[in-house]
């Protein structure tokens, strides 16, 4: 790991933005599909489940890369509390990325409902049928889903705060394209 780097490795940046777009799509598809009875419903469910499982695979790769490459240091002048908040919120975001697909899968398994993804890929059930487990997993998937969305909003607010107001290079560290450094951080 290279603490001196000012930016995440390109593959980390790529995954961050790819997954961000997919997760935001997942959240919208999730609340959209459960509130409709139109003919789009089955396709939305299919996309939700397929993309959700794909994201579970991606987050595993992403965590491995994170352990390998590490992350750039936050600006030295950031207050201690903010750094802690940043670290904890990133930890929580990783947590949601792991737990949400597992809850989704578990909820279907506990309902003895087959999980068949796009392309006919079948995921075998790893949990026995149980109405209790189903209820717990379903409620968690719904409420953690909303919490995830709230946290993403907070994260976006913080990112924009760094990008537009502090202009401290934090946004640049993960920006999808190598932005020109217009802010001349103290070097």
């Amino acid at each position: 790991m290279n603490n001196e780097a000012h930016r995440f490795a390109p593959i980390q940046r790529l995954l961050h933005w790819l997954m961000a777009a997919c997760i935001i799509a997942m959240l919208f598809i999730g609340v959209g599909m459960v509130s409709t009875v139109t003919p789009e419903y089955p396709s939305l469910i299919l996309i939700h489940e397929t993309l959700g499982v794909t994201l579970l695979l991606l987050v595993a790769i992403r965590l491995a890369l994170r352990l390998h490459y590490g992350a750039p240091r936050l600006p030295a002048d950031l207050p201690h509390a903010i750094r802690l908040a940043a670290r904890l919120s990133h930890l929580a975001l990783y947590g949601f990325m792991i737990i949400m697909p597992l809850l989704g899968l578990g909820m279907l398994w506990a309902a003895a409902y087959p999980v068949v993804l796009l392309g006919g890929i079948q995921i075998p059930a790893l949990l026995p049928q149980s109405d209790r487990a189903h209820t717990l997993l379903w409620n968690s998937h719904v409420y953690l889903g909303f919490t995830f969305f709230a946290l993403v909003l907070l994260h976006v607010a913080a990112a924009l705060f760094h990008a537009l107001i502090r202009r401290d290079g934090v946004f640049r560290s993960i920006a999808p394209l190598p932005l020109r450094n217009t802010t001349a951080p103290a070097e």
Partner: protein
Amino acid sequence: MNNSGNMSRSGLGSLVVIAAVLGGAAAAFAYTAGWLSPGRLTPERMIAALAPPGGAPLGHRRNHAKGICFTGVFEANGNGRALSRAKVFERGNYPALGRFNLGTADPNAVDATVRVRGLGLQITAGGEEWRMAMINPPFFAVSTPQSFHDLLIASGKKDPDAMKTFIQANPEFAAFATWAKTAPWTASYAEEPYHGLNSFIFTDAEGGEHAVRWSLLPAAPVVPISQTELEKRGPDFLEQEIVERVRASGPQRWTMVTTVADPGDPTADPSKAWPEGRRTVQVGTLVVQQIEQERDGPCRDINFDPTVLPRGIRLSDDPFPAARSSVYRKSYDLRAAEASDYPRTGTAKP
């Protein structure tokens, strides 16, 4: 390094931008979730419309709440392969799980008061599941999920004009009303036909596609009985009868017949029966071998969602299976969460 001390106009502008991004995202989320559109037909509204005046049957299916579970086999004769490459049509015997039921949201309804009888079925073949839920009328009451909702609302109203207005707006309902008045009643689940009504697309091994509907036709001879006579036999006669029939005379059988649409037949509207003379293929036999416990048995936690299909069968332009899938999921979520209102006993009578 930072531009502190200069929280100028541009800083304020940036705050406005941030607020706008967050507000916009939250509003879009709320809109997508339907929170801003009370008129949207959601599964919740459909479930609410199904609830009887006394309130929803907690812990039970929100419709077809009364029923009894069974296990058996589906004996495929191989003929179905001409229409669909699904493994379930390959000659052979496949385990089946199902549930005879009454089309009512009241789990304690008197059998003779419920006109529509149904059958939920799950067949497992080659690791794939095929689920369906079928009823005894030969066509559905209405053309669209929205009109099913309107029917539930209208029939729940005290106002006698509500149904009149509904029928004016949904003339297809007349055929169903006639069926309800004139079709014979029977005193057995075993004497009923069960029709899938919805259209699906079968894909054969060559990739050819066929729009089909299917039915289960009973092997047991049909003995009509009057509604009053049935009522005299007791509120739960149908359950007692099927238990006794299987015990005394052994497995009960239904032939599964698929009907293939001609070009132009209405596939999107289950209230329109297809004309006589369409190609039919007998694909196998459902054999009900054993009646299972309802309260503690294997059907309880199954959602007979008609969109659970094996490869070789897919949805058509019929809007019902999608709507049903969404509403059945919600019904399942609710009843599973309410399990303590309908506790398992471990010793319940079958």
